[in-house]
């Protein structure tokens, strides 16, 4: 509260100084979200209403100053806790060489193996820093220091209310335009709760250090990136230490009308046996402000956005190949394949209780055997524009995930495979009418030893756009699966969107939403099915 008051005094001071000079450039964005309906779990319906109004204000002042704040009214919230007041505020100075920001900030070092602070409101995930960031850029180097505090509140796991005091630096040398060599270092002191207040389980205090080194080579047709970090964690309350590390690399080659990228990940931040691996409150795992590349394709087709596999940053090795190829000016192909597994397998000893780690020498590459929880994905998409705004997109995707039951002596496993064909046709009839038709069909096969379950999911979306202002969307989803948390076989919803000018979008929808696991940036949350009315108004002034 005191910090907020001080922020406003300083902000008002600068605004008062300049208001008569007419040199203030304000910018406001506002998002209003309202929902009224039911969250569904089996036969149980729980009424849910939410109201959220989020106003982001930026005021550009002379002398390269920027003041910003976010007013948030989130009561009752859709996810997480209620909030009314100023949830963000900052003052920023940004000249050619110098950047100084005090208040709330996001920041990324290299590819995020040591530090990647970001917010995803849809998943109620927020690791923004409350503190100070100073950056200096010159022709041959970039330097940055930061210090502050991160409060992480998990909307799904209410126990996960972690706080971190954090300090760090980043230095990047660029002796030539094509090469950059960098180092970063993060020091943190954190408090990680192990249970809610009622449980009485004491929180764990940790200290962690994360150094990082990286190399970036960027030639006209070729680029190479290598990023390595190590995490050392001291769990003070347990008097134990843990070390882990992560490596990410990518190689790209560009040719006439094509581009190929090969990515590699080797994340070993906290390799543990199955008892430790499934303890999600453990203090030694990768910290929430680290967020390395997932080395898997992030899809835009609805059925493909429901992941079979959650990336395990603590113990996963994997590869990805991604290629774009233009057959001609109007036709593009995108091929993507990725493959990952854990590093080593754990064998249940004959006592039926303890595990032995079976090391393998080639644990720097993923392994297909079921004991290694392999996951692979193959995706091919073709896009053809038959005029400037009319296009056809057709894709095929095959995914397969193996879950191995390490607690069973008979080595049982469940293999889930999914084959998806999405098709999208977008046609511009005239400036005043466009139609977009999308259909996605998914065949799912779940195999548990000799038992096999087969079902399919089908999604149809039809969007009509009128006069570049009004859009009407009808959505229908159907499944033959016998098990769904919403206890339904089909979901129907309609949506109307209206664009007022170029800066305001009003959207209202009514119907059933299937929900499910949603992942973004490697952060995954389960979204419960919803049935009811939603309204959102987005304005950017």
């Amino acid at each position: 509260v005191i910090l907020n008051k001080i922020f406003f005094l300083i902000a008002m001071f600068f605004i008062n100084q300049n208001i008569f000079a007419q040199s203030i450039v304000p910018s406001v964005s506002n998002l209003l979200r309202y929902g009224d309906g039911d969250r569904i779990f089996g036969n149980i319906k729980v009424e849910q209403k939410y109201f959220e109004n989020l106003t982001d204000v930026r005021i550009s002042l002379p002398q390269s100053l920027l003041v910003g704040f976010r007013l948030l009214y989130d009561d009752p919230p859709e996810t997480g806790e209620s909030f009314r007041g100023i949830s963000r505020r900052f003052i920023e100075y940004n000249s050619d060489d110098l950047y100084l920001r005090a208040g709330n900030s996001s920041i990324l070092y290299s590819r995020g193996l040591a530090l990647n602070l970001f917010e995803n409101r849809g998943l109620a995930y927020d690791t923004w820093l409350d503190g100070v960031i100073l950056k200096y850029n010159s022709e041959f180097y970039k330097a940055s220091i930061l210090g502050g505090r991160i409060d992480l509140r998990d909307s799904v796991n209410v126990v996960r209310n972690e706080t971190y005091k954090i300090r760090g630096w980043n230095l990047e040398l660029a002796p030539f335009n094509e090469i950059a060599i960098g180092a970063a270092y993060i020091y943190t002191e954190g408090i990680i709760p192990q249970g809610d207040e009622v449980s009485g389980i004491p929180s764990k205090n940790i200290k962690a250090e994360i150094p990082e080194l990286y190399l970036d080579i960027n030639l006209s047709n070729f680029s190479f990136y290598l990023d390595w970090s190590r995490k050392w964690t001291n769990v003070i309350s347990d008097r134990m230490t843990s070390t882990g590390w992560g490596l990410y690399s990518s190689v790209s080659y560009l040719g006439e009308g094509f581009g190929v990228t090969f990515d590699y990940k080797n994340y070993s931040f906290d390799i543990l046996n199955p008892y430790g691996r499934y303890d999600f409150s453990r203090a030694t795992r990768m910290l929430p402000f680290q967020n390395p590349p997932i080395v898997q394709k992030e899809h835009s087709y609805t059925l493909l956005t429901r992941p079979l596999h959650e990336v395990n940053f603590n113990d996963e090795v994997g590869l990805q190949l991604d290629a774009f190829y233009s057959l001609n000016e109007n036709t593009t192909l995108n091929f993507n394949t990725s493959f990952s597994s854990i590093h080593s397998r754990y064998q249940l000893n004959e006592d039926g209780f303890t595990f032995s780690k079976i090391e393998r020498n080639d644990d720097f590459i993923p392994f297909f055997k079921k004991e290694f929880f392999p996951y692979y994905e193959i995706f091919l998409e073709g896009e053809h524009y038959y005029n400037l705004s009319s296009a056809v997109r057709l894709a095929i995707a095959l995914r397969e995930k193996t879950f191995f039951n390490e607690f069973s002596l008979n080595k049982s496993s469940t293999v889930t495979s999914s084959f998806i064909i999405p098709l999208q046709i977008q046609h511009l009839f005239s400036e005043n009418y466009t139609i977009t038709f999308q259909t996605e069909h998914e065949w799912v096969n779940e195999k548990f030893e000799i038992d096999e379950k087969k079902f399919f999911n089908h999604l149809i979306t039809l969007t009509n756009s009128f006069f570049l202002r009004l859009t009407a969307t009808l959505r229908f989803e159907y499944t033959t699966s016998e098990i769904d948390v919403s206890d339904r076989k089909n979901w129907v919803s309609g949506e109307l969107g209206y664009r007022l000018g170029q800066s305001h979008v009003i959207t209202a929808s009514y119907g059933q939403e299937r929900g499910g696991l949603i992942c973004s940036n490697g952060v995954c949350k389960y979204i419960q099915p919803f049935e009811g009315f939603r309204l959102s108004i987005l304005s950017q002034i």
Partner: protein
Amino acid sequence: MEVVMLKSIWPKKVFIFLIAQSFLAAQDKADFSIQTTDNKEIKLSELYNKGPVLVNFWALWCEPCKAEMKVLKNLYEKYQEKGFTILGINEDSPKSVSKVRAYVSSQKINFPVALDPNSQYLQKFNGQSIPYSLLVDRNGEIVYKSVGYLPGDEIKLEKEIQKLLSATQ
């Protein structure tokens, strides 16, 4: 009253701000530098000094963005000789940064594309969602904003570009 409050709470810091403010040169135009996919540092003012600039925030995972990119490429090719340019700012997270160059190359996009893997520049312009486009005139002022993309939007955008180009000439 305000002065009294400031004195009592933060006299030293306010004083430092006052001194700093009096020494700093005034810069009224919005400007920023950003790194492009080919590792070059590009400054917005260097672009708008030559003519109108469309700053377009996009991402590989955003289908409307890619559809819009197609029409922007056409607009760029049509008006670049008259001084118009586009600065694409990619909003993919770090995991996709290496793929952005491959996509840009395959699409034969000739205007500069910069990287913003932490959404720092999108936040600077208060962007809530993408695609988000800002048309900047030769004075560095934002004269047109557009949120989202519907096929046909380019017709209005083209009129705005023509208006700016005719005003310049």
